[in-house]
């Protein structure tokens, strides 16, 4: 049965699609084209000419010559790998606990997904209060020893803070995928393994992790992409550390926005954006090339 409605008039479907098309046009294509424009041109120092100066790859040369940019890249990489590792590790422990049906697991299964539904800036704001060294819940540690925790002063503390925020938000997401993956492992395999003499840890290492590998790989790429170049990272950094102290958390996504709209260096920021877009494309390519093929949605 092929019941396909055929519209004779061309303008009716266009009319229906128009709101969406306009949104995409104004908020995606226009900015994207502008980024190209900005990345390869420069505004004359005192303006006025009305003509933007075409400078070829000079903006990129400037960006790549800047040691702070490379520091930002390495910070981003450090952030991405640590946050991903932490988030996935904790999510896996939680998923294993729920899979073993420990007490209260059905309740936790329900609550664990909640953080993912919260917007990153809101997470950042909440953690900013919780981890405020003077007045947050954490402040008690500073009564034991002054400055035991002070993300406003120590770069390492600030980095820990944003990593915790990101991990907290993504644990729920990872947890759901891992739980689903664990539950698709036939129970009898675990029973067979325990008849063969293995304890819970051995079962996790020998049976559950290998069988969960496609899911874990999928989550790994997704988490890395998200933490390296994703909007969540920007939202969290912006609301907690603002890239500081002393640019200790100045990750790439944050650096672009602050350079463009605070430093007013549109050309430099545009060039960095293009680099980032390139990286996103690489990540996406990896994801489609290697991950989609291996993950079996059951």
């Amino acid at each position, binding site marked *: 049965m092929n019941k396909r409605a055929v519209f004779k008039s061309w303008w009716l479907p266009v009319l229906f699609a128009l709101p969406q098309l306009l949104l995409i046009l104004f908020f995606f294509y226009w900015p994207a084209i502008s980024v190209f424009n900005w990345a390869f041109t420069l505004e004359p120092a005192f303006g006025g000419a009305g003509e933007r100066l075409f400078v070829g790859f000079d903006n990129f040369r400037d960006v790549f010559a800047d040691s702070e940019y490379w520091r930002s890249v390495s910070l981003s990489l450090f952030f991405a790998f640590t946050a991903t590792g932490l988030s996935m590790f904790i999510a896996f422990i939680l998923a294993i606990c729920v899979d073993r049906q420990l007490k209260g697991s059905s309740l936790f299964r329900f609550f664990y997904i909640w953080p993912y539904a919260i917007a990153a800036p809101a997470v950042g704001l909440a953690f900013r209060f919780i981890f405020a060294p003077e007045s947050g819940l954490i402040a008690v540690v500073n009564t034991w020893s002054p400055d035991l925790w002070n993300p406003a002063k120590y770069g390492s503390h600030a980095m820990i803070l944003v990593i915790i925020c990101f991990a907290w938000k993504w644990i729920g997401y990872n947890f759901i995928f891992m739980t689903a993956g664990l539950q698709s492992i*036939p129970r*009898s*395999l675990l*029973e*067979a*393994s*325990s*008849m*063969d*003499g*293995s*304890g819970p840890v*051995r079962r996790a290492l*020998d*049976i559950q992790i*290998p*069988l969960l590998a496609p899911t874990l790989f999928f989550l790994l790429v997704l988490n890395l992409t998200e933490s390296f170049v994703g909007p969540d990272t920007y939202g969290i950094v912006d609301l907690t550390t603002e890239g500081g102290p002393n640019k200790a958390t100045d990750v790439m996504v944050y650096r672009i926005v602050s350079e463009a709209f605070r430093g007013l260096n549109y050309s430099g920021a545009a060039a960095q954006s293009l680099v980032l877009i390139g990286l996103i494309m690489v990540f996406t390519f990896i994801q489609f090339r290697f991950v989609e093929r291996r993950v079996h949605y059951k």
Partner: protein
Amino acid sequence: MAEIGIKDVRKTYGSTQILHGVDLNFKSGEFVVILGPSGCGKSTLLRMIAGLEEITSGEISIDGKVVNNLEPRDRGCSMVFQNYALYPHMNVAANIGYALKVAGVPRAERDRRIAETAKIVGLEELLDRKPAQLSGGQRQRVAMGRAIIREPKVFLFDEPLSNLDAKLRVQMRVEIRRLHKRLSATSVFVTHDQVEAMTLADKLIVMNKGHVEQVGTPLEIYHRPRTRFVGTFIGSPAMNFFDTTIAAGGDHVLLDGIVQAIDPVLGGQNAGTAVSVGIRPEHCRLVPAGTVNSVPANVDFIEELGSGRIVHVEIDGLSFAVSVEEDQFFEQGAVAGLQLPSEHIHLFSQETGLRLDDAPAATRQPAPKTVAA
């Protein structure tokens, strides 16, 4: 080699009772088959012996040692699962050797024993394959190999043959029996297939609705089913039944108004009792209509077996299956005479479902009327 003792073992899930107090003893080296319809609690009992299912109350002991609170790995049992439960990411050798690896057996020793086991179960050529590349029968062998490599005291089989096609099933049945002879560990085999049960068992246990209905050798159970349920469940095609009352003299019952002789001693003690009369299809006789001592029966339809045939006849609304010899032919729709030899008639009380001449009646509980899951 180990004895298994099961003492008043019960299992409940919430308010549903699955096992209603099971008492059994398995001798060392015995091949025990637990037979019953699905949902009778036989798999649950097996899993309780294995340690995969908690024991609600009662006691299970292996080799005299109570194992209620022992982890599966400390019980010395190994198990063959219905769906084999092979580790899909490991090859055959790794599957078979996994228990040894967990136990920390050195590599050389492990390889030697894997090779030895593979030879026993006939998998030498396939050690590098993954389970997905094996046929059903081969997977079954891997599961067996995995179970025997640990040299366990007890083998547990949870319907291991039910996923195989009919021909393989017969073949594996023979191999399991042969393997048992060779290893002589105590084996507990759960199945719903009465042919498997009859052919494999030293000791056969028939379960129904969470109760043990009868324990005995296959022949005891075939010849003297203790309850009507056991009579129905053992034997193929199933036993024929008709309900009636033992006549006043105690030496006969009536089928369609015609006298059927029964054991006069037994009948004499139970005259006037409402009974279910059971007789196996292979013990009924079909004779030309009008023969003395036969009940006229309409031939309903015929199932051809080649080596013989099963004739379904109908008497006054009751249907009987009769197994007849290769050289006996009957026409569908014809009238024949049915004879029920008195020495093969089983009498069960309609009230309790118990066999009338079942020895010491005092120790027997009535057959369960309650339905469990």
